[in-house]
């Protein structure tokens, strides 16, 4: 089951963090969590992929919270996202699209990856995010609008 959903979990975390190395670490942590909490998994309440995405989200949020605390403590405001020459969100991705996706917030990228990349339906995505399906549609619509705007401005600029 782990290998079957590994790519999805990794992609989800990659979009959330915008950092391939961090996504890799968090994906490993996600599967360790899944192993520990396996007995809590109830297939009647959702597919394994949904449950793994929820665990991945928890791992990412824990990381972001710890990171925010660390930044506050150290007074560091610079982003930890590495400056890579290669596109972050996939090798074949155009640099303009990659930059546009990068410019979105983690919350916006999260809904894009769930609905567009992983192709989850609205209800499943809502379950992962812990919100109502209508709220998922709203968030997706705004995120895609913003992505479009960024791409257009990038092309013009």
């Amino acid at each position, binding site marked *: 089951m*782990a290998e079957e959903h590994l790519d999805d979990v*990794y992609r989800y975390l990659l979009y959330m963090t915008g950092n391939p190395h961090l996504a*890799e670490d968090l994906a490993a942590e996600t599967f360790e969590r899944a192993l520990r909490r396996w007995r809590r998994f109830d297939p009647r309440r959702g597919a394994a992929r949904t449950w793994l995405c929820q665990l991945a989200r928890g791992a990412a949020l824990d990381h*972001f919270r710890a990171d925010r605390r660390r930044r506050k403590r150290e007074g560091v405001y610079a982003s930890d996202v590495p400056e890579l020459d290669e596109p972050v969100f996939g090798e074949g991705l155009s640099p303009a699209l990659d930059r546009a996706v990068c410019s979105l*917030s983690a*919350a916006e990228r999260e809904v894009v990856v769930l609905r567009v990349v992983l192709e989850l339906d609205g209800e499943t995505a809502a379950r992962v995010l812990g919100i109502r399906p209508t709220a998922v549609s709203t968030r997706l619509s705004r995120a895609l609008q913003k992505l479009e705007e960024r791409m257009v401005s990038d092309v013009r600029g």
Partner: protein
Amino acid sequence: MSEASFEMVLNELREAAPPAPERLRGLVRSLPAATPRFSLRVRPAISAAIVTMLVVGVGVSIYAGLRGDPAGHRNTANYFSASESAQSGGTKQRNPAPSRGLGFEQQLAPGLTAKSRLQKQDVAMRLRVDDLSGATQSAVRTTRRLGGFVAGADYATRSEDGNSRLALRVPVANLQKAIASFTQLGTILSQHISVADLQGGLERLDARIAKARHAGHAQTVARLERRRDALIREGTYAHVSLQLTTAKPAAKNVVPGRFDRFLDTSGDILGKEAIAVLYALVVAGPFVLIAALLFLAERTRRRRSDHRLLEETG
């Protein structure tokens, strides 16, 4: 950007999404396989607990119904037994059986009365008799024969029935004989016996009299001695309230069958269980509601906080 070209962009995102790195894949492969273990799921567990409680509750009531409630129904049985004896009316209890609870000599047990102590004894009896006049006269004669007297009498007859109320004073020493004699007059419908100890009060009065006498207070001594005499009188004569009636029971009491008793007992127990559950709900309900509201509020707060965090994270 046109819709078609934007759709192409989304396809590009989909197609370019990278697979998990080999290192991660190796790591995940190295994880031990999760073995399914027994886990207690909350909802089925709650459902099972509720069903179990219901089954146990109903089972207990059925068991108690089949077995018969030792407290409640014994009284009922006695009541009906007494009623049955009342219905049989007419037949006087020449030889009242102690097992029927009518043997007053046994009822006025030494545990209640103590000859060495001064006690105030009150007896109230209600009997159904055939011959009201004869029974009343017999009671008065018995009282006088035993050294007592009639303190009050109320005698009334109508076409169907009659009532006679006698307030008797019977020497305590002969009280049991008097009661035994009264029980012969007819069928006992009810009885009440009370005993109050006067010995303590008497001893206190004696002490006060001795003290007053020692101090030379003659008036106080006289007053206290009057009180002492009154107290002794109170303990010397028992108050017997005897009510005789010729009235027949209004309706025939039906002895409940085994099934009726079973239903009655089971219903009682089920009712008590329902009251207990309702009580628990009323007591615990507000706390559960507050806990649920706090839980929901905390979850909402956390979700908003998470969303803000992700919004702030680039």
